[in-house]
């Protein structure tokens, strides 16, 4: 009797392992952090493009208003793909678009905006990439939709038509 329980137990054990491996085949192996939705936006000090004084994020984000914070850079290729959608969104008066220029060279950034248009109400500079990290971003482009100083949506990677519609729906 005893000799039969042990093999049975092992059999079940291996079946469970099989099942778990089987399940995990369907998961993606690339890690994307959980979006910190409904979190307060971080507080940070930042320089505006073309200006020298440092301002606090509280001066930028007001309550009761929608903001779209877009992390971009002139050297980032997907940013070029999403730019037209930002241009469309910039015509919407309900939302203010804030650009966080990630590790960019100011000359190249200017050329980029000249070529592609400037959708941003304010451009902030993130030369060291540390402000992006405060936001929990790790690449370019990333975009945050903000309302009442809370993040209500986070988009990793370029904005496309679908995302654009979702944003327009929300505001």
């Amino acid at each position, binding site marked *: 009797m005893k000799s039969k329980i042990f093999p049975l137990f092992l059999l079940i054990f291996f079946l469970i392992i099989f099942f778990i491996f089987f399940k995990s085949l369907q998961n993606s192996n690339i890690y994307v952090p*959980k979006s910190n939705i409904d979190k307060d936006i971080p507080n940070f000090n930042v320089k505006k493009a073309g200006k020298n004084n440092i301002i606090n994020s509280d001066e930028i984000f007001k309550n009761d208003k929608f903001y779209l914070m877009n992390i971009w850079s002139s050297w980032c290729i997907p940013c070029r793909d999403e730019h037209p959608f930002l241009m469309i969104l910039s015509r919407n008066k309900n939302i203010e678009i804030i650009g966080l220029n990630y*590790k960019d060279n100011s000359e190249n950034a200017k050329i980029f905006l000249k070529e592609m248009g400037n959708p941003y109400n304010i451009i902030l500079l993130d030369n060291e*990439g540390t402000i992006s*990290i405060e936001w929990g971003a790790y*690449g370019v482009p990333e975009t945050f939709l903000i309302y009442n100083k809370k993040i209500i949506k986070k988009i990793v990677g370029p904005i496309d038509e679908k995302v654009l519609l979702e944003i327009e729906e929300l505001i």
Partner: protein
Amino acid sequence: MKLIRYSIVIILLLNFNTSFAQQDNLQTKITKNLRCLICQGQSVYDSDSEFANSLKFLINQKIDDGLNENQIYDYLKDKFGEWILYDPNFSKNTYFLWLLPILIFIIGGAIILKLFILKKN
């Protein structure tokens, strides 16, 4: 003879450690324990991606601000999730991870002792 052999070994080993001192760097220690989100197989320390470089810079800032190691880990865990740490905390998610090997070690020892050593016929 033996004495000569040992003294050679000692001299060799003592000789080259005068030229390098230990570089005890908190930033290195922390970044080695962080996993890079861009190239997901590497540590932040090893990686040269933009994200990793920024993170190294940020960690220096945080150290200057007077945060200790665990505070920096907590800060990053809050931003990017537990995944970013290579050294998983001992929590309800990782009880098995840390204890199972030790448990198996103990059970293994017990089996050896019982089956082969203590048994007297």
